[in-house]
């Protein structure tokens, strides 16, 4: 008896407002602790982060101006980075050979070859063409490059002679932001619909759920294809971008609406919601201050898992030349020339922007899987 009283005392002592405040971890600290233990999730996060950095500071990572079109440089194969020169001598600083064009004597097609006479060392933080950081601060610095006169195309060039690596970095801006915005719009719609449906219940819930089922039974990709194909050609870039965001979010919100509804249904009967109601809280207050924060972890998980799907769908549409148009470029758009089998056969490297897509999709999927496990830090693994 005495011991149990003692324990009780120590337990209540935990909650008494002492001078030395008890260390407690917030929800997000708990999530972070669990998240960082998952190696794939960290790797996924890093993949996504590096793509975002590449996209925002694309010009910094591009040794050649990716907007610089020059038909003379059409379809240059990727520049090989070397350490050992033609004489078999090892160089500590990586270098590239100058690429010169000749005419293939049989097919009369341009043939790019390396000229071992002309060597360019790869330098870091070089000064070359001018660009603006975030479109504001003018600078001439680039991460890497070669000396004046030389050119380096990591992924080769495309039809109009623009550097594919630089363009792929820039394309990330559209691919990532388009899918992010589309997902955010669908998340907002899905969360609102789901919360309303679950919170009010009854007839409203029934009607909304039938509508969600209806929208969910649409054939996604064919409908996206149809909607993107009817965008008038005369619209400017911003209009096309906005309408593409709307098109992609149109059919993506149903999954979230259902999941959020399930969560809200479970929360509706809990004590803290009942307490809030008894204290006379308005519906809006309960929804935004209680239900929404409690579903946010779930929403973030769905966000990271929806983005890669939209990236893939968008890549397919742009690959077909539907939707995103120049001057906007996305990763799928860069591979558009590969539709022609003949072009693809002689210039295999135009398929390489797919690496960016793979990294993005894998990254977001790993991140989403890790977040899903971490989002509920109170469960026991």
């Amino acid at each position, binding site marked *: 008896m005495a011991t149990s009283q003692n324990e009780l005392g120590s337990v209540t002592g935990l909650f008494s407002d002492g001078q030395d405040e008890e260390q407690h971890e917030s929800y997000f600290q708990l999530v972070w602790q669990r998240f960082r233990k998952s190696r794939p999730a960290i790797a996924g996060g890093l993949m996504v982060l590096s793509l975002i950095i590449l996209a925002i500071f694309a010009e910094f990572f591009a040794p050649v101006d990716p907007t610089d079109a020059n038909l003379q440089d059409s379809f240059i194969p990727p520049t090989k980075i070397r350490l050992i020169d033609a004489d078999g001598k090892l160089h500590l600083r990586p270098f590239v050979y100058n690429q010169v064009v000749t005419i293939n004597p049989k097919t009369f097609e341009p043939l790019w070859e390396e000229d071992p006479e002309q060597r360019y060392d790869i330098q870091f933080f070089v000064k070359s063409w001018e660009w603006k950081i975030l479109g504001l601060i003018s600078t001439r610095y680039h991460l890497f490059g070669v000396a004046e006169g030389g050119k380096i195309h990591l992924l080769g060039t495309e039809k109009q002679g623009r550097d594919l690596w630089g363009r792929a970095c820039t394309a990330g801006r559209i691919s990532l932001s388009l899918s992010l915005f589309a997902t955010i719009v669908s998340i907002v719609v899905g969360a609102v619909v789901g919360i309303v449906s679950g919170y009010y219940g009854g007839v409203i819930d029934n009607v909304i759920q039938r509508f969600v089922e209806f929208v969910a039974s649409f054939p996604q990709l064919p*409908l996206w294809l*149809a909607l993107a194909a009817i965008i008038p050609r005369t619209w400017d870039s911003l209009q096309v971008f906005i309408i593409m965001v709307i098109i992609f979010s149109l059919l993506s919100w149903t999954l979230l609406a259902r999941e959020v509804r399930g969560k809200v249904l479970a929360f509706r009967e809990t004590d803290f919601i009942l307490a809030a109601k008894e204290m006379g809280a308005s519906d809006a207050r309960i929804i935004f201050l209680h239900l929404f924060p409690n579903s946010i972890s779930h929403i973030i998980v769905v966000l990271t898992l929806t983005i890669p799907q939209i990236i893939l769908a968008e890549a397919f549409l742009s690959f077909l030349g539907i939707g995103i148009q120049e001057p906007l470029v996305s990763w799928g758009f860069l591979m558009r020339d590969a539709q022609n089998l003949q072009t693809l056969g002689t210039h295999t490297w135009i398929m390489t922007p797919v690496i960016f897509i793979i990294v993005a999709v*894998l990254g977001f999927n790993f991140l989403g899987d890790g977040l899903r496990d971490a989002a509920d830090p109170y469960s026991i693994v």
Partner: protein
Amino acid sequence: MIGYIARRVGVSIAVVLGIALVSFIVIQLPPGDYADGYKSFLIEQGGATESEAEAQAELFRQRYGLDKPLPLQFLVWIRDMVTKGSFGFSFAYKRDVGELIAERFPRTLLLAVLAHLTSTVVGIVVGILVAPRQYSLADNLAAFAAFVLSALPRFWIALAIMFFLVFTLEQEHVTAFHSPQFVVVPWAFGSLEEISRTWAKLLDLLQHIWPVVVIAGLGGVARNMRVMRGNMLDELNAQYVTTARSKGLTEGQVMRRHAVPNALHPIIMYQGTSLPYMLQGELQASIVMGLPTIGTLLLTSLRNEDIYISASCLLIYGVLLVAGNLIADIALVVLDPRVRFS
């Protein structure tokens, strides 16, 4: 149970009608119609004056009912579909859309069903194989492969396979269902010679469509495998499995008689949701490979503003999805007596 099935069928028909309405509206959204294209064609190519061309375009509209209000056009379209089996008129192909679709629909269905079957069978088998070896090398490899396969854009896989076929294997006629010498060979089983020719034609067909089946099925394999593995792990940790083991059953018997049959139920329910994935894969792969299926028809019709084909193709995809879900639901009810009819 009959009542439940009837109710599900009724709901499905309503959903299909809704999809038809939306498809029709979507296709009518852009300003202008095929008659406008016809008009500018007459002016540019036929040397007609503005008013002459306009009159011709007006005649064209009257002939195909394009001058009527939209709701009426929609009702006529649905009515003809139900009563005559006619899906409207294709302006670009100058044929009835029904014929075009009837020609291509069986191919799409064949590809989708083949992809579905292979992905289900392979996914389930791999799932069963890796589940008892959780976190082993094979399990991790399968998980990694599943992740990478679902991260690759499927149009890109199609490109890569086509590149390989054309430039490495130097196979000709990749963008067709048959090599030219087999196109006119009939599917006949009358005599021995006919059977051997049909057999050769079948092999030729498989040689042409395997990329699409593989591409459409790959993602499905990954998904089915993950679901099946999860189910198996749940079942293998259940108490009745421990009981079965302690009775002295061999591990193989435990798997065959207890774990696998119980783990299969969620997979059936899951089939309805994996169908759209297959259809989208089929769509991407056949567009890239240029196979004449519904997918390529949809794309060309969208580019030509050939409204009735586009709307019909969208509708066909919708019907396939709804039907797939319906079949999965009914199969589950028939196979699992625990499911309640609500």
